[in-house]
């Protein structure tokens, strides 16, 4: 359990660092796919059969509905925000400050929003396109892990507030 004494630098905990790492990796993948989209270059991935990432990435479901904006752009925004929330927690710990009370619940909500989007994309891949995209699946897994980590941090924060039994 973290020490909450103000002014005393402390470790941020594995959860915050994990969330930051997820944000960085996810942002990297999103930037990669977005760059290739606008460059008109196919990503490095499997093309053929059920796993056909190019087919998925060129489908209608890879664009924000009603626009020509690839969904990788809001994906970049999602990972930036998630990483920023984790960075706030780490910064507070390093400076011995208490985390804002809203930080962990907001991170859970943000991750839950991401999971809703992920479930939509999985539906599009499995039910509509009958094809899977490796890059997309890796991003989906990252979002799911992010939600699990955010939930765990929220739970540990609740237990710390209740005090020892």
């Amino acid at each position, binding site marked *: 359990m973290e020490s909450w004494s103000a002014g005393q630098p402390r470790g941020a905990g594995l959860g915050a660092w994990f969330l930051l790492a997820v944000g960085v990796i996810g942002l990297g993948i999103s930037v990669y796919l977005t760059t290739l989209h606008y460059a*008109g*270059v*196919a990503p490095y991935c499997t*093309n*053929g*059969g059920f796993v*056909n990432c*190019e*087919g998925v990435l*060129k*489908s*209608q*479901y890879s*664009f924000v509905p009603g626009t*020509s904006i690839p969904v990788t752009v809001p994906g970049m925004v999602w990972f930036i925000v998630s990483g920023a929330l984790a960075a706030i927690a780490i910064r507070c710990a390093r400076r011995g400050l208490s985390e804002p009370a809203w930080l962990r619940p907001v991170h859970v909500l943000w991750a839950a929003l991401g*999971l809703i989007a992920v*479930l939509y994309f*999985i*539906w599009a891949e*499995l*039910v*509509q*396109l*009958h*094809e899977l995209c490796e890059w997309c699946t890796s991003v989906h897994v990252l979002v*799911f892990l992010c*939600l*699990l980590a955010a*939930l*765990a941090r929220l*739970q*540990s924060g609740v*237990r710390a507030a209740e005090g020892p*039994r």
Partner: protein
Amino acid sequence: MARLSKRRREETTSGGTTPAGRPGPAPKPATPRASTTPRASTTPRASTPPRASTTPSRYRAQRVTLARPWWQSPWAWGGGLTVVVVAVVVVFIVLGSSSPSKSTSSSSSNQLAPASVLAAVTGVSPSVSSTIAAGGVADPLEPVTGSPAALTGPNGSPELFYLGAEYCPYCAAERWSVVIALSRFGTFSNLHITMSDSNPDDIPNTHTFTFYGSSYSSQYLDFAPIESEDRSGNPLQTPTAAEENLVTTYDTSPYSSQTGGIPFQDLANSYILSGSGVNPELLQGMTWQQIANTLTDTSNQVAQAIIGNANWLTAGICKVTGGQPGSVCTAAPIPTLEGQLGSS
């Protein structure tokens, strides 16, 4: 103390009567008192701070560790969420496997052709077209013998009938030339892009257009495309009885090396185009934009094949439209190619 009279002394020692005359109680034998240790003198206690009352250990409160409710265990939320997500994915898998078709409308899964790609195919430079000429492509138009009635469209103009399928890689390659050629005589609308099927044993994922859901308007030519199946081989469009008759009549020897093969095109019942004038292997690994970008390079193999094939088709259209429009049909290399077309 005066001594008792002799008599009194005798009565006392022999159990004599009390003075009242009754016999007195027998004298008790003297019980020797236990010798008691003389109490040591107690020194007064130094004052000590009042101690907290110490209850005997048997009354001490026992610490009872209460079991945490299961929903507050560290793994409850994460485990529950994982179960829910896995269940939802399983449902999607079941739904996906039980529905044979992606969608009856391929346009629901296909994107509109990007403006930059459309600009490239509709704006092929006349100088590039002239330089490429036939582009090394053999004449793909087979003249129809027997002088059948001209095939015309709903507008009374000569009609180009096209039969293909979205999964077909040869259709995918051919469509690039068809779009370029027809764009010289009219305008496409709502043109979507797609890819041929992903079968690794074929020529997978050839980037192309699809005519499904598109429309074409021209004062010189009517265009009647049929995309029979989508990328997954699911039914899309069905030819009319008249169109089916065309296929039965002309998509066979001597006009076609493969009976019922696609792509199949009937240009006004004057020329038959069977198969593709563009080898789809040339387009492998190229995106729509990359293919479009080649159309300005006269030395590029892809450009030569696509534009050369389009020039042949343009020449054939000019033949059936009577050389209209003049701006197209008199521009090099069309007149030269038109002169090389076989006659019916």
